[in-house]
């Protein structure tokens, strides 16, 4: 593109320079691979099949990202340390205006990288087979983005009634229609694809379980099918991920993943219990008089009364 206007000093790459560059690239790659492996440790426990896939993708992205970040910042650091002008040196550096080969290379290499990353991300996405809101699909021809063969890598969606997830300002409530149970704790059997129907009763909320790496906005006016596969028993935090007003931060819940037997036992126990009022942090804070931090007394949307459920979660119990 731009050619130097003044003749450049002839620059031929000596064997030594090439060897040094290769050695540096190998060192950069080794460090980046190590960082990429550490990336798994920065995540919550892998409690779903989707989490395993997402973490692999994140490890891959972290490796590539580290390689680029370390390479570029090392070049800058080297310049800063060793290519300073002397105190009284006011002369100019070499007038290198460009190098077509280099410019083409650093345009095509990132382009190739982007295509690689996008393709890999697509494959992961495809395997996750996230459902989400589907009604928009009716308006467009199928692009064949989810071939059934790929989706078959995860357990098939069982033909069962979805668990209804109701969310409002500010409480989560779970309904098991087949057993006629309501609960403030979402219980799921391990190693079976969960099927949920997400329903918002007022504003936008977000269904988010970090340990599962899944998230879906819950949009008022539409019931959203949602699925994932828990693979690790334990108690996990459910968070509202889409800002929902005053008590947004307090809108949390617990998801319990347990063996099929414990799950069936829990269903039976819960069905036998009468409706009781669950604890609700937003409602508790709203009604508690005094003992408030700096407050101008601005009006807020009143929290809905605590849900009446067969099974009430104990907030203080631990979770991962």
């Amino acid at each position: 593109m731009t050619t130097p206007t003044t003749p450049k000093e002839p620059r031929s790459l000596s064997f030594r320079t090439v060897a040094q560059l290769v050695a540096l690239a190998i060192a950069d790659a080794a460090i980046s691979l190590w960082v990429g492996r550490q990336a798994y440790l920065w995540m919550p426990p892998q409690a779903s099949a989707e989490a395993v896939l997402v973490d692999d993708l994140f490890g891959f992205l972290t490796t590539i990202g580290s390689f680029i970040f370390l390479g570029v910042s090392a070049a800058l650091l080297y310049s800063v340390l060793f290519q300073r002008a002397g105190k009284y040196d006011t002369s100019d550096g070499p007038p290198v205006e460009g190098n077509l080969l280099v410019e083409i290379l650093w345009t095509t290499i990132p382009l190739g990288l982007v295509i690689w990353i996008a393709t890999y991300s697509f494959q992961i996405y495809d395997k996750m087979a996230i459902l989400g809101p589907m009604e928009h699909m009716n308006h467009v021809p199928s692009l064949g983005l989810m071939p059934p063969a790929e989706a078959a890598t995860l357990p098939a969606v069982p033909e069962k009634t979805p668990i209804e997830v109701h969310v409002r300002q500010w409480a989560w409530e779970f309904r098991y229609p087949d057993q006629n149970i309501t609960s403030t704790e979402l219980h799921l059997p391990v190693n079976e694809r969960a099927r949920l129907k997400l329903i918002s009763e007022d504003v936008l909320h977000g269904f988010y379980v970090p340990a599962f790496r899944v998230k879906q906005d819950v949009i008022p006016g539409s019931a959203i099918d949602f699925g994932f596969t828990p693979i690790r028993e334990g108690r996990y935090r459910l968070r509202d991920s889409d800002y929902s007003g005053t008590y947004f931060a307090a809108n949390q819940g617990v998801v319990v993943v347990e063996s099929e037997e414990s799950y069936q036992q829990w269903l039976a126990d819960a069905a036998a219990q009468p409706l009781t009022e669950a604890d609700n942090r937003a409602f508790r804070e709203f009604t508690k008089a005094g003992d408030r931090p700096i407050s101008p007394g601005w009006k807020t949307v009143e929290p809905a009364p605590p849900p009446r459920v067969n099974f009430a979660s104990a907030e203080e119990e631990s979770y991962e």
Partner: protein
Amino acid sequence: MSNASIEAIAAKSGQPFPGAPNNWRRFFSFSTDHKVIGIQYMVTAFVFFLIGGLLAMVMRGELITPEADLVDRTVYNALFTMHGTIMLFMWTFPVLNGLSNYLVPLMIGARDMAFPRLNAAAFWLVPVFGTLLMVSFFVPGGPSQSGWWAYPPVSLQNPTGNLINGQVLWLLAVALSGVSSIMGAVNFVTTIFRMRAPGMGWFKMPAFCWTVLSAQMIQLFGLPSLTAGAVMLLLDLTAGTSFFDPARGGDPVLYQHFFWFYSHPAVYVIILPIFGTFSEIFPVYARKPLFGYRFVVVSSLIITVLSAMVWVHHMFASGTPSWMRMLFMFSTMLISVPTGVKVFAWVATVWGGKLRLDTPMLFALGGLVCFLFAGITGVMLGAVPFDIHVNNTYFVVGHFHYVIYGATVMGVYAAIYHWFPKMTGHMYYEGLGKLHFALTFIGVNLNFFPMHPLGLMGMPRRVASYDPEFAYWNVIASLGGFLLGVSTLPFILNMISSWILGKRAPANPWNAIGLEWLIPSPPPVENFEEIPIVVSGPYGYGSDEPLVANNPAGELISEHS
């Protein structure tokens, strides 16, 4: 200026017309001089930067412990809403408009912007809608609490029941900000197209002007969408329409399309002029031409085009079908290619140069490193499966602040230090500048790096309280936030004291190449005694070619240099 004698008097006296204030008072007048307007923009914006920063520090104070124990939840929600709004609409856009206003006519060899009165009017809207925003702190119910995205239905909830409430004032301010920005954009695009000096072909124009042109074209196609969304929301809120209210048949996701169709490209409106600043500063302090100049400037236009095709990546977790998720994943990642071209070009410019680590260069280098980090996390966010996990978490907040504070604010500082001698005619104090850089760079990383692990762990953004496992990184982030607050003090001290007491600046203290360095510091009204005739490209470091064929300063050059 039709009268030649008035013109001559004006040029000598530094007054736009006889009787106009020729001292500090001109900054409080309806001046049509692009340089006065530029400084008006920048100083006004900086005042709001301090206000927005104070709000952020209260937020970081709240987040230093897991419980919501410093301020009430409603106050916290108002704080982050107003922090975001002020920092974007009252700080970044105005400060960059100010910088562009000051520099573009000088860099292209024009005497002023194409429409000087429109220019002044666009500026004076800034304090108007800024005041409107500030007033909302004092209406019953307080300012808007729905976040700077103002997503309905939360933004449509009006618990006070008053017609005049924080959300209404917020929407009016945002709509007015859009009007002001459109006025500015028309002016910049016209000026750059029509008022370049003779001989300044497109590929002889400084990279900064290319980035301003690209950014302002985004304003022209994007802002109508934001303004439409704001007006429709305002009608929903006040006039009983139901565009976005699902309870009455509206579609809240539609608003998200309107909003992000502008508000993602807006990030490029912000970052492009910073790219321009980097492209101007690296050659000067590395004493080398900008490497791959044509690739660098054309990549700005490519970013402009691609920026129109990325908005849905903000909605990967909302009502977005799979085909759309995949399409926008690819377009989002694609934008990293022209951006990467620029980054590599800057590194190649610096590489093998004769570096001078003056404050502007330090800020530019620091900004570049932060931007590199932000770019990498940005590509991660483009990958749909990963984005689904970290969307709406602190990972995004960290990424965004690396772009906005790490790259943009540091880039603005780099620009202010670099052109301070030109703007004021005085040199700044280098020691204070370096102290400012050190505090800022450490503060940025302490404040915003911890947000990434927090997001990976699953801490949602916009929370007034959080679970105890997030406390460790939050404490570090808060300390970084307070340090960033402190970091502005040496800057303020430096700017005020050196403007008043600093050593007189010569016309070209950095030995830089560019039309603005050929005229006295500060430049006289109407800039050029003689319109420059450009004969070579903007970065001829190391070559002996002259930039212009005449002396644009006329006889004035001898008075100051």
